Structure formats: C-alpha cells, structure tokens
C-alpha cells in the first residue's frame, strides 16, 4: 500500500498516513511538522513545508434519493497550510485529478468554519 501522506517532524521523526478512507490524520503525534509529502492521484507528491499549521480533509457525497444513486463517493481531498494569518489550500479533484490552489485569509468563512480540532 502506498501511503496517502508522509510527514517529517522537526525532530526528524516521521509519520505515515493511511488511505483516502482511513487517512490517519487524527492520529498524527502532537509535534511540530516540518513538511508533508501528499500523494496526488497522478502518483506525484505535493510537498508542503514551513507552515505553522496544517489541515487535511476528504469531501464525500452520499446520494440519499434518486435513480442510480451512488452510496458514497469521495469527490475532493484538501491539504492546507497556515502561516501569517493566510491559508493556502490545495483542492484535489479525486475524480479527474485536477488541483486547484486557493489562498484564504484565516478569518475567511471557509477557513473559520472548519472543525478547529483537526489543525496539526
């Protein structure tokens, strides 16, 4: 299995993520992260480093009504880095591998409404 992400901490220790379904993000040790290597659908890696905090989430849809309803579909992955009150967001389309790079102020509604407990 190829891990979804690899983390290098400031103390040179490492942590490996899991899969899109079971990412392992919650279990990341509480240590200062130096860099994250994030596996893209293309099998390339996106490297985030030198941020103060990092965030990751998967966006899923579950059809609850309709013909040919798809039970659960993973549509997007987000990997983010926060520094100096700005947040860089990489929105990865899991259906076509497109990547959108976005920049938000920390108090932007999209950022401020995230579940804060998952910043690392």
């Amino acid at each position, binding site marked *: 299995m190829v891990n979804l992400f690899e983390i290098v901490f400031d103390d040179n220790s490492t942590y490996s993520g899991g899969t899109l379904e079971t990412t392992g993000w919650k279990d990341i040790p509480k240590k200062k992260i130096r860099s994250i290597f994030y596996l893209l659908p293309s099998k390339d890696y996106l490297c985030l480093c030198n941020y103060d905090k990092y965030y990751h989430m998967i966006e*899923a*849809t579950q059809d609850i009504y309709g013909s040919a309803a798809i039970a*659960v579909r993973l549509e997007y992955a987000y990997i983010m880095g926060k520094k100096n009150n700005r947040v860089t967001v990489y929105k990865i389309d899991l259906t076509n591998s497109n990547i959108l790079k976005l920049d938000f102020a920390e108090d932007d509604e999209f950022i401020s409404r995230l579940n804060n407990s998952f910043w690392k």
Partner: protein
Amino acid sequence: MTNLTFLTNYVDADVTYLINPADYIAVDLTNDYLIWTAGDAVVKDLMTHEPTSGELNAAASLIDAVNPVTVAKCLLMDYSHDVGGSYYTHLVKGMSENKRYVYCFSFDAATATEPQLEAWDTSAHATAVKNVLGLGTALNSFVKGVCTTVTLPGVGWAGASLAGASNVLLLNAGNGAILGGGALYANLKIVIPAAYATPAAETFVLTCRYTYV
C-alpha cells in the same frame, strides 16, 4: 472515515432518533427509495407489494391551474421489510408539516465542515436543469428543504429551494461541523407551481455532502 446513515421517521415525528431509534428506518441506499406521490387506494402506507410504474403514474400529483400543489405523501419503499413484517412501504411521518424529526442524517463520528443537502439532475452532481429543479433557475426548484436540527420549521414553512451547488441546505443550522458525531434533521417537500406547463415524471438526486479527516 465518518459514515452517514440516512433514516426516515415512520412513527412519531416529534421524537428524536436518539430518544427512540425504533421510530426510524435506515434507508438501504442500494434497494430502498423514496416515493413522492399524491397516493391513492393502491399507492399508500403499508403496501404488500412494490408499486409498479403504472400504479405510481395513476397516483401521481396533478398540476392545479390556480394553486401550487405540495406533493401529499412521501413513502419509503423498504425492499427488505425492515419493520412491521411484510410491508414494502411506510409513510414518512411529518413530511411537509411543522415537524422536526422527519428525515435524519446520523453521523458516526466528527465532520470537518457542516454537512449539507443538495439536489442535482443525476448522481454525477454536475447539472441542475430539470423541471423539478427549476430549469436552471435554482430559486424556482420544486424541491424545498428546511433544517430542523435546532428548531421546528414553523407552520406553513416555505423552505429553501434546492438545486445545484449554490442553493443547498446546511444541516446543522449554520452552526458548523459536527464535533463528535450525532444526528441532524431536515424536513422536505415538493411544491409544483400553479399551472405549470410541463407535466412530467422526472427523477432527480438528493445528496448529502460532508467531510472527514
């Protein structure tokens, strides 16, 4: 991964899933489905067979020349007869009424953002241009939803028109992510405009969008 279970209330729409889960049926998304119908002597609560297309057409809602028509009934077609023995259909209690605990979205763990309900033409979640979704004008969508997680929707609630990515229904009343799992609620209805010019039997897709870490 955070998992979602979609349930409908078939007993008492004043009772939460937490207090009495037996009032709810978990929708098997592979085999079960919702039926929006005017209902008649055949298409009704507690059917003992799966309704045919002909029976559904005969029980369809009729367009009114003067007044909007709210589709009278929503039935859960329960293929596996989860409750009550051999019955295929169960009336969704409180649909379109001033009731809180009608459609339940139960999450088994925290989410990263606030879950939301969306309406699309198909499971591709790409377009919302069918008649029932307003022909591309989201505010004209027949599909109305109201979040009832925090409060009653009110008598004669109008609800939000659901269509596409911009006209969605936040399921936690705008309070953000679910911190430790739990149940969110909504009420839904389908309102056909008066004298609508295009009678049709249309399908659409309701989807719940949520995030996890």
